[in-house]
């Protein structure tokens, strides 16, 4: 994986120069400082791989956790420094030979992803929840990923106290890909970034300590469907290249506008609308798959349910941020001229996503599946903002993503706490009466649910209001109405969980709430804090999102 990454940009620049009209073979000019967040994350991930090989087993866990936290924090500092220098606004430009944009949306989303990842590391590192195995604290991950579930090898690995500390470098590689994804400014970088963040996620999904078969099944499903969607994306890229003779966003956009010079070699296909429309459709399908929009949402419930819960939380939050970032850039930078073609389709997708997500969630009995369908519904709300096609649309989506991702992380972190003998007790009936057994945990989860439901004074309400406002101003009032109706449906099942927790009699053999280490407590506390701050005093963050709302072209 790391090898692919190293050669990625180089191959790419050779490739574009070959397609260009110049004969010379230019030296790639890379703005290292502007790409520093990405470079730091990949660098630390690489060090993590080395640590996995050379650090003694005893101290590996500590080393990996410290590396990951320091690396992510440093990358976040780099993002803040870039934003401070004005790369988000006045100095926004396209770096690395046209491959990566450094602009407001990119920096805002990268910052969000890095913070989300930082909090996710805390939940990954949690070792107090599972009962001790053979005298050792264990985390949520399999002792040895390659051991057959239930086999002798697995037993031996558990007995020997193996732990899968490589989850941390895997997480970092995924984060690196996610950082590039919303910043990618040509279709090939987009594709490479997609693969770079997807592959580690497939592996992470398969690594649950409990219910390993389900976890592996989830990973296989995710992999197969993900590969399928990647193929769609790649095929779409090929068609768009055929249409425009370029893979760069500005190149395609200028052909659509009719302002581009046409490459003689591709004169036959350039400007062929069939290629363009099919190409757009396929690329968009690839992105909508990652977003989890209907009808490309089928993977979410299975994968969310099967994956280790810390991974689910990370994936649900960060993937959504990265994928919506990429979708926004594609629609706003490449395809503004095609607005009249893609808007009606996106309307349909948004409406279907909101309603299907909310309605199907009503019937769920597993808390992780419930949150999965709720994430589908939320994808629909965000799409309503995406459709606004103006600056308000961009900034409302940015704000929503930031608000949503922390609620999601927090909610899944709470899910890891509720346990019985078989590990996490995710069936909803097991949560009955939780409010009486552990009022604090139930109250925290209720805060997250209310935020999901969009009750005023939580971040969920501010975000929902922002996207609906943008949609209404963009002339999409019907979407707003569908949005509030599906919000009402969605509220029903969030409230049902609250009823279950607070007003039902506890079961005699009900699950217990594990006392977490400071790591998970911190993650949950951050989630609650962000939920309340963005709900009560969102002005600063709205301003930030507002300033960051302009794409560089």
């Amino acid at each position, binding site marked *: 994986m790391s090898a692919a990454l190293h050669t990625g940009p180089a191959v790419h620049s050779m490739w574009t120069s070959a397609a260009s009209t110049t004969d010379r073979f230019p030296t790639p000019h890379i703005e290292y400082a502007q790409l520093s967040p990405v470079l730091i994350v990949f660098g630390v991930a690489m060090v993590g791989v080395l640590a996995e090989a050379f650090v003694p087993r005893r101290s590996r866990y500590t080393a990996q956790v410290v590396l990951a936290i320091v690396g992510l924090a440093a990358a976040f500092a780099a993002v803040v420094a870039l934003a401070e220098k004005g790369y988000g606004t006045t100095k926004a430009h396209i770096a690395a030979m046209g491959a990566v944009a450094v602009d407001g949306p990119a920096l805002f989303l990268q910052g969000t992803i890095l913070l989300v990842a930082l909090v996710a590391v805390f939940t990954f590192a949690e070792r107090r929840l599972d009962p001790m195995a053979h005298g050792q604290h264990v985390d949520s991950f399999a002792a040895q990923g390659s051991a057959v579930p239930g086999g002798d090898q697995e037993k031996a690995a558990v007995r020997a106290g193996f732990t899968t500390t490589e989850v941390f470098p895997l997480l970092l590689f995924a984060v690196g890909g996610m950082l590039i994804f919303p910043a990618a400014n040509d279709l090939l970088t987009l594709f490479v970034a997609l693969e770079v963040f997807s592959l580690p996620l497939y592996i992470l999904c398969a690594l649950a300590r409990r219910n390993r078969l389900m976890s592996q099944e989830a990973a296989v499903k995710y992999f197969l469907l993900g590969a399928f969607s990647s193929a769609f994306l790649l095929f779409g890229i090929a068609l768009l290249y055929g249409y425009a003779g370029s893979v760069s966003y500005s190149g395609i956009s200028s052909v659509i506008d009719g302002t581009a010079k046409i490459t003689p070699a591709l004169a036959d296909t350039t400007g062929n609308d069939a290629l363009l429309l099919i190409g757009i459709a396929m690329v968009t399908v690839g992105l909508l798959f990652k977003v989890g929009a209907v009808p490309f949402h089928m993977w979410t419930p299975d994968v969310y349910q099967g994956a280790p819960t810390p991974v689910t939380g990370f994936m649900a939050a960060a993937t959504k941020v990265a994928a919506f970032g990429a979708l926004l850039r594609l629609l706003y930078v490449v395809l503004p001229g095609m607005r009249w073609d893609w808007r009606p389709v996106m309307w349909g997708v948004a409406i279907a996503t909101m309603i299907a997500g909310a309605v199907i969630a009503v019937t769920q009995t597993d808390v992780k599946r419930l949150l999965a369908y709720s994430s589908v519904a939320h994808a629909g709300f965000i799409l309503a903002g995406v459709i606004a096609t103006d600056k308000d649309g961009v900034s409302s989506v940015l704000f929503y993503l930031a608000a949503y991702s922390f609620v999601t992380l927090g909610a899944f972190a709470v899910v890891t706490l509720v346990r019985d003998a078989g590990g996490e007790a995710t069936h909803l009936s097991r949560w009955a009466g939780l409010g009486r057994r552990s009022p604090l945990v139930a109250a925290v989860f209720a805060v997250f649910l209310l935020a999901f439901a969009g009750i005023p*004074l939580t971040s969920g309400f501010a975000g929902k209001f922002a996207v609906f406002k943008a949609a209404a101003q963009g002339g999409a009032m019907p979407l707003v109405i569908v949005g509030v109706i599906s919000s009402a449906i969605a509220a029903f099942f969030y409230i049902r969980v609250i009823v279950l927790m607070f007003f039902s009699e506890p079961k005699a053999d009900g699950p217990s709430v594990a006392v977490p280490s400071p790591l998970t407590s911190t993650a949950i506390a951050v989630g609650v804090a962000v939920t309340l701050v963005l709900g009560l005093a969102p002005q600063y963050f709205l301003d930030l999102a507002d300033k960051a709302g302009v794409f560089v072209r």
Partner: protein
Amino acid sequence: MSFPLLTATAALPAVGAIATAAVPAARRVAAKYTALAFSLGTLVLAIIAMVRFDPGGARYQLTESHTWVKNFGLHYDLGVDGIAVVMVALTALLIPFVMLAGWHDADPLEGPDPNRRWRPTQGFFALILLVEAMVVLSFEATDVFLFYIFFEAMLIPMYFLIGGFGDRAHPGGEEEAARQRSYAAVKFLLYNLVGGLIMLAAIIGLYAATARQLGTGTFSLQQILDARASGQFKLGTDTERWLFLGFFFAFAVKAPLWPLHTWLPNAMGEATSPVAVLITAVVDKVGTFAMLRFCLQLFPEASKWATPVILVLALISIIYGALLAVGQRDIKRLIAYASVSHFGFIILGIFAMTSQGESGATLYMVNHGISTAALMLVAGFLITRRGSRIIADFGGVQKVAPVLAGTFMIGGLATLSLPGLAPFVSEFLVLVGTFSRYPVLGIIATLGIVLAALYVLVLYQRTMTGPVKAGIEGMADLKVREVVVVAPLIALLLFLGVYPKPVADIVNPSVKHTLSDVHKTDPKPALEAKK
């Protein structure tokens, strides 16, 4: 900068809620006194606000204005007119009585099972204070969005009050009680949430309209009204009607108006009596109040357009609520349907759009609050003593507990608007106001009074008179705490029944303002025999 009196009136109960919740679990009595002290402090502030309010002065007084979220056009704008200041005072007045009446409602039950003992006293009183803070803010808000935030947010503490602390005297036993209670709480929440979300769509529509016409979107009532007065801002007829419907739907659910009333009997039946008072006497008033403040002021033309339908719905509420009250077997549900009937009168008064109707509706909100509180709280004492809320389980109470029976009688007579008690004045004004514009409707509405006499007197007769039934023999009369709760309410009912002028004087100028917003004058043969 002057002292932010209105903020303080809302902040004090909010701080009180936190303080009460923070009292250690073992000191539950201390928590009760803390909460009571904060609610009394709020009452003092509300009275100061009422005294400082000058009925002849500016329309909105004691105003405060800050920008909260600029991007949303959300302002922290507070201000009271005569109607609002009276409603704030009513809220602040009722909360201490609600607390005193529910003094033992959240005490842990006896028994070995720890789950049965789970009744956090601190939570109960903190939630009541939280509801008070949010209700007060929604009466004071002069920013539409600010109002909406608290209008919606108050559902959550209310929901926990209904679902978490149900009536112990349930006909169906403990398990059935828990099931019914959580059903009632969910129904309450979903009805109101759906109403609120539809209003949210209308609010967003309003923002889009102001943003398009004024450059920046705003929710400030003052800014919108000024812009409309100066001709900068005008809603298209269709837009205005849609937005009006969005707002009205939410308020009609809250008020509640037939056919959106069905959550109320469930909620009031399953909640403890003090919480039922909180719902019907305090929280629901926000709905009717908001019709006056937001529907009529923001959408005057659409309000006139919708008037015929709304009047008919109000009439149906009056008659239907009263008829169902006559048929109830359950004391609390009976009072709930009586409330539906009374809310019909209030809405009738508001949309009759005459000064008597409007003044009457406002006074009605106050008087209904006090009279229902008196009746419901005494009913609560009665139900707790017998352990049942089925009418047939009672009989001959007046022989055993005469004071209880007497106060119940007065509460009942107030509910049927006996002359000399406060509700009579307001009901009379509403009927006169309606009659002067819509004689037929006025006549039909009068039927509601007849039916009210029927359900109140039959209730009294069945429970209080006749031979003493089994289970009633040893019934204790009202205790000191309970007398403290009921006596002031009855005193107020008598006082406002004989001398309503103090309240009417504060309310009337604001009613004039509201009527001028909808460009309505009283019809010619109006009965101008007003003080």
